[in-house]
């Protein structure tokens, strides 16, 4: 460790965030490799270290003998202040190499309110913020993750963007980078043109955006032959063949998800219309039981975690979930298996009861909307009965604390839907315990504000404006009578800002720069969020944020992200939008029939249920 750092660490909170000596951390001599990559996560260590995608890339890059990847997270403000005082640049955790000395700095974009952290980390790393200001010797700044499907607000700052799953494309990119470096590595444009020719790579500076008189986008035009008019995302066809992080870094401190992660499948076919992940990660691809058991064994040996989480968008949908759990429990007697996302039905709650027992104090369910009508609008395939049964099973199983997740501001929402949220909460709170126990002790109702996201059927919808959201929060609050119910609502201004940047365009780069200069960072953290500064930024730049968040966009209007494709066809999204307004649900394509979203033909990839038939007694005990 550098002596300057030794001096600083005793003065900051949670110094283990900055050590870089965790178990399984990989330290390489930069002089022995051809290319170096900083895996940058624009949030605090505990959040970034919980992210599976970053673990995968860390593993894949470091497996190459010619490359090194190091981690870097947004320093907490107390650490930032010390770094600035000591004039220390932000550094890669493993070797302390300054960020500016890496060949490539790659940000994972999970959430719009981390964008100012991207800028702040570049500034702390002494890297020119704007892409056009970078020259020979500066790193290439790249990004990926769900928000990369509309990276336009960050277009000024990014050299290139990776669409979709990174495990294959990262290798192709590093190889091109290595060749370019070996040829001298001076002409940045030459590298970017070669990179743009790789499927799944988007170079924002190779596109010119034309605006119409009313401020909407008229056209987006590629300006280099390598820049495709529409960039398709990358996916891994066969997850059994894909590399996985067999020895992830084990942090010293308690992080958000402090457990081993076993990824059962990617994609989710349920088709919730508000959910961006459900659209951009299609199609569903499962891992086989055999692969999962081998990966579980590797994780046990390499990490020693006492807990393993079965992660996926909707884990209990895995075809052979029961079989998998049974075999994990047989193989590892004292391993705690956990399910991160429970569907609201008795099957899932029963499973949770079997695997988790009463280890966890509370059980979390997400009905999302308060009425059957609205749940049909958003295609949340959960009935009032499902909710009742799930809760009854949980109470009978001994759970006494519930967390319920809902959204407000959903399209077509009415008073009745809001009262429905209160009604469900009241029902849960008064569910009797058949065994005569104490029943439900506490119900925590968490109500978030709906943010329309790109590439979803609701991408044309306006967000409900702030004052009205606050009123709707109050409607629910007033309707709640039971003192055992706790209502948590979200900051409407933070949701507004999220909506602005989620569907923003390149002109918002100015705002990010202004907000960064005013000191905005960690905007997703209540204690650091300062909306006043954002208002100042919008006023100074003469940009009306309502144009992005509150405007209903006509179907005919070109959207800022139309040239970026997750494989799902735009007309599927508009069809889904129409069905939503009619309250017509759409079936799960992995269970029933294809709903023609376009992903499978576009990517030439069928959905893949490797587990086999859903816990069919015939196949139980067999492994592919």
């Amino acid at each position, binding site marked *: *460790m550098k002596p300057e750092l030794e001096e600083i*660490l*005793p003065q900051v909170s949670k*110094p*283990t965030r900055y*050590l870089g*000596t*965790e*178990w399984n951390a990989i330290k390489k001599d930069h002089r022995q490799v051809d290319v170096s990559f900083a895996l940058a996560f624009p949030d605090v260590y505990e959040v970034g270290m919980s992210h599976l995608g970053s673990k995968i890339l860390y593993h894949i890059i470091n497996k190459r003998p010619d490359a090194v990847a190091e981690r870097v997270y947004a320093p907490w403000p107390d650490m930032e202040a010390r770094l600035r005082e000591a004039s220390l640049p932000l550094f890669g955790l493993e070797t302390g190499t300054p960020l500016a000395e890496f060949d490539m700095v790659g940000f994972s974009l999970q959430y719009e309110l981390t964008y100012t952290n991207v800028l702040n980390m570049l500034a702390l790393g002494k890297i020119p913020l704007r892409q056009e200001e970078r020259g020979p010797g500066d790193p290439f700044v790249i990004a990926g993750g769900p928000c990369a499907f509309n990276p336009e607000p960050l277009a000024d700052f990014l050299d290139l963007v990776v669409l979709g799953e990174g495990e294959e494309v990262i290798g192709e990119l590093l190889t091109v980078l290595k060749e370019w470096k070996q040829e001298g590595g001076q002409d940045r444009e030459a590298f970017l043109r070669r990179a743009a020719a790789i499927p799944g790579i988007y170079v924002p500076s190779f596109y010119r955006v034309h605006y119409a008189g009313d401020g909407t986008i008229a056209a987006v035009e590629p300006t280099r032959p390598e820049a495709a008019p529409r960039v398709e995302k990358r996916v891994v066809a066969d997850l059994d063949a894909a590399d996985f992080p067999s020895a992830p870094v*084990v942090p*010293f*401190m*308690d992080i958000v998800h402090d457990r081993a992660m076993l990824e059962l499948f990617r994609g989710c076919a349920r088709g919730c219309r508000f959910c961006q992940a459900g659209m951009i990660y299609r199609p569903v691809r499962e891992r086989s039981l055999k692969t999962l058991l081998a990966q579980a064994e590797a994780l*046990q*040996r*390499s*990490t*020693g*975690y*006492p807990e393993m989480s079965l992660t996926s968008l909707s884990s209990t949908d895995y075809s052979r979930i029961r079989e998998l759990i049974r075999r994990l429990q047989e193989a590892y007697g*004292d391993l705690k298996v956990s399910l991160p996302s429970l569907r609201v039905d008795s099957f899932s709650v029963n499973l949770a009861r079997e695997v988790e*027992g*009463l*280890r966890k104090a509370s059980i979390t369910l997400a009905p999302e909307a308060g009425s059957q009508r609205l749940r049909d609008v958003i295609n949340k395939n959960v009935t009032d009965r499902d909710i009742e049964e799930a809760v009854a099973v949980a109470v009978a199983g001994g759970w006494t604390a519930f967390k319920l997740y809902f959204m407000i501001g959903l399209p077509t929402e009415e008073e009745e839907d809001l009262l429905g949220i209160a009604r469900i909460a009241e029902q849960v709170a008064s569910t009797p315990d058949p065994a005569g126990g104490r029943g439900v002790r506490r119900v925590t109702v968490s109500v978030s504000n709906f943010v329309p996201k790109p590439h979803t059927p609701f991408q044309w919808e306006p967000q409900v404006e702030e004052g009205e959201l606050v009123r709707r929060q109050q409607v629910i609050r007033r309707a709640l009578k039971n003192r055992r119910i706790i209502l948590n609502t979200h900051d409407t201004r933070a949701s507004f800002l999220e909506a602005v940047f989620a569907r923003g365009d390149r002109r918002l780069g100015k705002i990010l720069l202004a907000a960064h200069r005013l000191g905005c960072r960690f905007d997703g953290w209540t204690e650091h969020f300062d909306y006043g500064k954002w208002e100042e930024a919008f006023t100074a730049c003469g940009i009306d944020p309502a144009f992005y968040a509150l405007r209903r966009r006509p179907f005919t209007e070109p959207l800022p992200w139309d040239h970026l494709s997750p494989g799902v066809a735009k007309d599927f999204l508009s069809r889904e939008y129409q069905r939503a307004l009619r309250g017509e649900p759409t079936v799960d394509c992995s269970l029933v029939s294809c709903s023609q979203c376009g992903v499978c033909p576009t990517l030439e990839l069928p959905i893949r249920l490797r587990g086999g038939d859903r816990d069919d007694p015939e196949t139980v005990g067999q492994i592919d």
Partner: protein
Amino acid sequence: MTQKLWARLIKGPEVRFISHLDLVGTVEKALRRARVPLAFSQGFNPQPRIAFAAALPVGMTSSGEYVEFTLREPWPPEFFLKQVNGQLPPGLALAAVREVPEKYPALMAVVNLARYQIGLELPAGRGSEDFSRAWEGFLQQEEVTVSRQTRKGLRRFNLIPYIYHYRLQEDSSDSIAITLELRLTPQGSVRPGEVMEAFRAYTGWEGRVFFLHREGLYIVRDDGIHSPLTVKF
């Protein structure tokens, strides 16, 4: 048949910023990687039976932390040592381990003394004589109150009864080495940092504490001071 092991753990500078709670988790994961057959507590949420004799303040290194491990089937102690050391991150190592009879008391119930090495600067114009005088004057008081912010609020206590023994040694012309032995009691203990802070506050001493290290934990009885690795009951 369970097996009880007492081990001495070294916490080096690489890991000195790890909190006590994180250290416990780090050791547990290392034992799991080493496939040690740990015994578990009973109840809804069984926990592995790993018990540290006394928490070490954050930021401090130690050459003598003691840990009691309970295994559900016996392992030869040398094998245990080798397996676990292969799985500990840099800066952590088990130095020695001993098997103790089942009927021995819990380690944390018998360890009652901690020995620290402290390095203190002598400010310009002050010699080791000046320091000894100030130090002895400080310790001759009946009562020196320490205030500590705990989760349950502010705790105030007198540190004097916790001082067991000390030894002073001139380190170089500008620093002094203090060996300080502090009692660990069921009611609590005082941290060496707190003692030094109180000393500086009382005497206005300007030199900085530049080194703080726990040398070991011991068992004081009428028959002398014992190491947990050799004591007999």
